[in-house]
């Protein structure tokens, strides 16, 4: 019997998630830094390059706006920049999936009462991240198809009664979210192929539907209270101060002067640090909660805690 595992209440699921997040905070920061390092380097290089290029060709963007005036050399450069942008976007996406892979592994170890380093968390990342990426695409296509199929009757309902239509739309989206919530961690933690986790996620959540719905709704509430509202409530005074000082976005010099006053600098710095910290915590929290839910549902439906992992018939990561 795995004594550190047992069925948990919703509050306990959240508490354990925050506990693992806090005890592995340093590892998660390192993992984020390591995974995003190439992106930050490329971003810095791109910014420096853009500034140098802009100084050398001050009218470049005006020329792009008018393609007829482009010389063949400049046209090639534009195509090159576009391809570079695509490469950069793909790199960011890959980095995000590598990061998610590592986060799942860290939380997985945390649930089992272990601690791993960022190196151990990234073990086997190329295949894992690729599977995650494919699973993400499959989820998007499946969700899109189901959404499209259901969209027509919902649209018709909205024409008859808008409020009822919106409610049905919300319920439908929630059901899809609940059923697929475990698909991504299953890809990583059970080393599944990228196709079958959706079905496994449905099998696990169907028996624990209300619990999963409760966790999703409450984590959304927590996210809204801590992040969305703080962002909105911080931005409102900013625009109020802007209005009071008569500064508009049309006058960048006045805006800069306003932003460089000590009070506004302190306000901006406080806002930036708070939002950064909350974003970091809540991003990891949302992924961590999926891992803990996966374990909880396995315990409830499959008695995962009653036998050692190698006897339960499910391969665990590591």
């Amino acid at each position, binding site marked *: *019997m795995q*004594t*550190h595992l*047992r*069925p948990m*209440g*919703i*509050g*306990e*699921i*959240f*508490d*354990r*998630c*925050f*506990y693992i*997040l*806090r005890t592995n905070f340093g590892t998660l920061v390192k993992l984020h830094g390591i995974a995003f390092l190439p992106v930050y380097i490329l971003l810095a290089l791109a910014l420096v390059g853009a500034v140098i290029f802009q100084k050398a060709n001050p009218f470049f963007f005006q020329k792009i706006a008018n393609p007829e005036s482009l010389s063949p050399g400049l046209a090639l450069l534009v195509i090159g920049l576009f391809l570079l942008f695509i490469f950069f976007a793909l790199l960011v996406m890959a980095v995000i999936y590598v990061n998610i892979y590592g986060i799942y592994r860290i939380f997985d170890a945390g649930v089992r*009462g272990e601690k791993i380093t960022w190196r151990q968390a990234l073990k086997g990342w190329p295949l894992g991240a690729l599977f995650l990426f494919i699973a993400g695409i499959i989820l998007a296509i499946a969700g899109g198809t189901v959404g499209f199929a259901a969209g027509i009757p919902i649209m018709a309902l909205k024409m008859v009664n808008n409020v009822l239509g919106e409610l049905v739309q919300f319920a439908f989206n929630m059901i899809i979210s609940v059923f697929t919530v475990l698909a991504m961690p299953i890809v990583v933690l059970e080393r599944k192929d990228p196709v079958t986790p959706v079905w496994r996620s449905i099998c696990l959540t169907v028996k624990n539907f209300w619990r999963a719905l409760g966790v999703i709704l*409450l984590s959304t*509430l*927590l996210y809204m*209270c*801590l992040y969305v*509202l*703080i962002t909105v*409530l*911080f931005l409102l005074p900013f625009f109020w101060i802007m209005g009071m000082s008569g500064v508009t976005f049309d006058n960048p010099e006045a805006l800069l002067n306003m932003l460089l006053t000590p009070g506004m600098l302190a306000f901006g710095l406080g806002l930036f640090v*708070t939002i950064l*910290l*909350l974003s970091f*915590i809540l991003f990891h929290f949302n992924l961590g909660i999926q891992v803990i839910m996966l374990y909880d549902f396995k315990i*409830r*439906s*499959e*008695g995962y*805690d*009653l*036998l050692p992992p190698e*006897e*339960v*018939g499910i391969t665990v990561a590591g």
Partner: protein
Amino acid sequence: MNAQLTIRTPENVHIRYDLAGPGSRFFALVIDNLIQGLLLTAFLWPLAKGKNLDLNTLPEKMGLWDGLFLAVLIFFIMLIALGYFIIFECLWDGQTPGKKLLGLKVRRLGGQPVDFLASLLRNLFRIVDILPVFYVAGFLTMFFNSMGRRIGDIVAGTMVIRERRSKAPLPVGLAPEEHEEEIKAWLGGSLPELTEGELGPIREYLRRCDAFAPATRKRLVEGILRRVLVCFRPAGPMPVVDAEQVLRVIYRWYQTANFAREEAEHGREEKPAVSYENP
């Protein structure tokens, strides 16, 4: 594993507390805030409406009774906003309705029940925890504090713990099984000492077996039985088809033996006391 605190009493007894984290405390707060909102709406709104109080009236132009009424109104709002927590925590052994629902309790750092002063302090500092909005300061303090304490808790020397909900010692009716003697004989006739690692899965399985699908039940029973049979000396093949029955018999057998042992120990404790009084 969640955050825990172990306190050693002067009698060298170790008491372990499961500390509540930001998640369950947030939900308890949401429930309490909903109740507070309902209380405010139910009691104060009809009063304010009945009095037809215009809050835009300047204080110097307000009549004496209007001013007095406004003062009482503000007092009640404060009573519901802060007094709600203080009153419930003092009267309900450190619990508010939200905390009771989530199984949480406020305790002093030494494990003692929360008193009025500590409750007053921790709730007055809510005003700091709320800053800048929606308990962001409190949340971040709780997140980075190893005991999950918010600013109010740190100031008042309190903590929020998770109540231990006692588990029933007898998860099943444990009525005598049909082939009980036959199974016991097959198991070797005597009950070996079973550790928590061997007995725990049987108890947990019997407690939760109704939630498992038939195929899962079969797999779990076989797995648990395989591990527990190592402690016994089964003679030949199993006499009954239902392996779950064997688990029930082992658990019942263990409980009966345990009960008999406890009875015997109690008996031994009582004898000297009697003989002391009547030498």
